[in-house]
């Protein structure tokens, strides 16, 4: 109920704006209360619009486009591939200039999306009625998410056939792992900064893990605010190797034929490329206190979409159909190591379940509040 009210409020703002700025508004469009439409009515309107434009951070949108156009032949999907960072800048600039060109944004980098786009009214939420019941609160607000990705500790299973060589994250700060931990520089890439931030937010768990490993309570150094940041400081001091790109981490950790491969933080779903690329990536799911983070990919409406009905229909489509795998709409995202947000879509086989993985699910709002300080802290420990 509360959700409805909120929706009405955000929908009213741009509506009023459009009404005020247009001398002769097309009444049929302005008067529509989308929340009260049936799915069939929405399709009808969307076909009338005939087009929907989407900015997407992944080129898998091309597959979505094909599937959508097969399902709704009258509607043309115009997809633009654009990274999350550039998408955020572009959406904000377009909004400010009053020249929006997209109807839908499919974007990662949730903490920045929330502070720069949602809070500023650039992106608005749309949660299709039919999936509301199967989505946890955190995947409905502030924007709807259709899947979760990971940044977790991975190792080389060819070199370590009996399981992960690490049981506790704090081992990585010891001499045995000096120069043998690879990650993308969190000061260069947002998802890795989210990982670093989560370590800080989970300071209690990190302190507990410290005690479990070293047998004594952690003592923070001067100027180090919490156990998570102490871990990062010790990790950097242990010659952790920074790089610029997840693919570099995968190749460094995963390449087969290495005697003494490093471990590293990367995407669990990249394991699906093992055979293709000659890697032996495997997740260290049992590491204490957690192998890393899980974070959402979000779908939002732009503030004044030119094709409001088709935009809603596309978001509805990308949430998957009612089959167990989400159907053809969800297929490009149905990948082992990524997780559907809907609890009625079964997670793909060939990967441990979200529970077994035990990665921390980030809270984008909290992450957004803390990540600036974490970025600054990391700058001081280079």
């Amino acid at each position: 109920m509360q959700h409805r009210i909120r929706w009405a409020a955000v929908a009213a703002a741009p509506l009023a704006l459009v009404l005020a700025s247009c001398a002769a508004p097309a009444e049929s469009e302005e008067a529509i209360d989308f929340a009260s439409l049936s799915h069939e009515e929405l399709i009808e309107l969307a076909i009338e619009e005939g087009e929907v434009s989407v900015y997407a951070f992944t080129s898998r949108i091309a597959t979505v486009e094909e599937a959508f156009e097969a399902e709704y032949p009258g509607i043309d999907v115009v997809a633009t591939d654009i990274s999350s960072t550039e998408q955020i800048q572009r959406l904000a600039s377009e909004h400010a200039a009053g020249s929006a060109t997209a109807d839908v944004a499919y974007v990662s980098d949730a903490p920045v999306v929330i502070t720069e786009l949602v809070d500023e009214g650039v992106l608005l939420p749309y949660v299709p009625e039919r999936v509301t019941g199967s989505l946890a609160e955190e995947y409905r607000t502030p924007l709807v998410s259709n899947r979760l990705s990971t940044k977790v500790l991975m190792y080389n299973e060819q070199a370590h056939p009996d399981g992960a060589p690490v049981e506790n994250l704090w081992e990585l700060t010891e001499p045995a792992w000096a120069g043998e931990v690879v990650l993308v520089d969190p000061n260069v890439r947002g998802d890795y900064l989210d990982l670093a931030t989560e370590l800080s937010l989970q300071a209690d768990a990190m302190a507990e893990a410290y005690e479990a490993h070293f047998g004594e309570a952690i003592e923070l150094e001067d100027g180090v605010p919490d156990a998570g940041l102490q871990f990062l400081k010790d990790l950097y001091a242990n010659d952790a190797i920074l790089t610029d790109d997840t693919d570099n981490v995968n190749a460094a950790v995963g390449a087969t034929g290495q005697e003494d491969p490093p471990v590293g933080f990367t995407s669990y779903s990249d394991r699906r490329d093992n055979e293709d690329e000659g890697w032996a990536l495997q997740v260290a799911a049992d590491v204490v206190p957690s192998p890393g983070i899980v974070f959402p990919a979000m779908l939002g409406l732009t503030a004044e979409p030119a094709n409001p009905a088709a935009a809603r229909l596309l978001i509805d489509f990308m949430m998957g159909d009612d089959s167990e795998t989400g159907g053809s709409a969800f297929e490009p995202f149905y990948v082992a190591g990524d997780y559907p947000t809907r609890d009625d879509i079964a997670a793909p086989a060939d990967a441990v379940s979200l529970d077994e993985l035990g990665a921390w699910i980030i809270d984008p709002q909290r992450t957004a509040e803390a990540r600036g300080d974490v970025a600054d802290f990391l700058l001081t420990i280079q």
Partner: protein
Amino acid sequence: MIAVRRLSTIFARPITWIALLVAAVLVVLVAAPLAGLVAATVREDGGGSWADVLASSLSQNLFWQPLGNSLLVAIGTGLISTLLGGFLAWVVVMSDVPGRRIIGVLATIPFALPSFAIALAWESVFRNDRLGGNPGLLASLGVAVPDALSWGALPVTLTLVAHYYSLSFVVVAAALAGIGGDLIAAAELTGASRARVAARIALPAVAPALLSGFLLAFAEGISNFAVPALLGLPVRFQTLSTRLYGAISTGDTERGYVLAILLVLVAAVVLYLGNRATRGRSFAVITGKASRARTVRTGPWRWPLLAASLALVTATTIIPGLVLAVSTLLRRTNDLDGGFTLHFWIGASDPSIAQGFRGVLSDPVLLQAGMGTIALGASVALCAGALGLVAAYVVRRVRSNVVGAGIGFLAYVPFLIPGIALGAAFIAQFGAPIGPLPSLYGTFAILVVAGTAASLPFAFQTSRSALGQVSNELEEAALVAGAGTGRRIGRILLPLSARGVTGGAMLVFVTMVRDLSLVVLLVTPATPLLAVQTFRYTSEGFTQHANAITLVIAAVSVAATLLARRLQGARRPWTES
């Protein structure tokens, strides 16, 4: 009264109006985005980002140390690039070394290759086991490669040199070709030694070109992100560009913009010093009596010179090109063990490979994207070339130092404004209708406008160096004969500086077809571009596809280069031997 009369004399001169026009265009294209950048850093939190960067506990690692590294890399890149580019230009234009035409073609290619391809070539030889994964050639032969050779300042600088010496080559080769043979012949008749001819005639004559080449390589070197990120981060070698990119991509845009403004200031200082070194001297070598360039006989030195030139172009053109080409044929990314395939070029959609993406040549979008790219590159080359030429002419003729320096500054710094910021500025400026004019946003025109702004430095620097060679006497003679400004430019300056100007336009074209960072904010699906295709592939880690497109882009660039050379030859038949 006197002031009014003086003003009216100033405004009676056409150059004043041209200067005003150029200034107005530069204000819209460069000064306004720069001002937007500055405004963005003080608007939100009252300039807190400035304090963070310059005067906080973060400053050391956020600014000062990266600044030192950036200066090291960029000055190294500028100096070595100028040296190597100048050397090759001399070999190609002035010497009788065999095969110099081929060397001339090969020397322009590194700039058409993406800098990461050259970095990859470096890695494929010198990578050690610090990062893990597959080591390079030397390490797999059992040689212990020190970190300093694999990562950090040295490989970053040398890789950038390998990429940017082409710039100096293009500019200096044009300048050398402008030296009339009679000048050298006269010097030789007086009994001057070859070294003396080089030091007293050739070198001063190309000094403006050497400076232009240095300035371009410096600015490119200090703003390049891909190379220091790839080869620097593993040893935590941070530059201003990695810090700037990092700040923007982790959502701290203001801090990134502060770093960008500081980069612009650093470049302004370098520009000032460079101009001061050459101020007040005439480098004119083209007078009324043009004659064919004279070839220097190198005698027994021709073979060592050939060997050195060939080694240089092989290391920077052929090896990176081959590495890139081979990488598109590898079944597994950068790994020879998986075997070879043509799938990434011509394969049909196969769900088991790269999520069903077909080979790049089988993709119907490719042709369209290729045409769009060429159209954009050519349009921007034309616009930037014209603007750069006129701006350089104004700087040459205008009497006010302030106006000249201002135009010179604005025409130099666009490299240093991050593409994402420039793109955002153009959305802000042209996103809404301006008066009766419709919004340019989403059109091809805005891409051309933004591209012109971003690539102006190439056009301006090459034109400036080329015009610097043309003697004022020629123009004055035409003036006495009653020729107007347009006629003087069209009939005297343009033909005489054609080689330099087309060289600049070619650099602009190459940058436009290869560079993504700017257009990604402005492009729409209606104008598909090759660089955007590359992004489509890299975003999902399809390296082979991306590299295949990159190779297509390089091929387009090389074709353009060859075409430009033909045109140059046609314009100035007397410089061809």
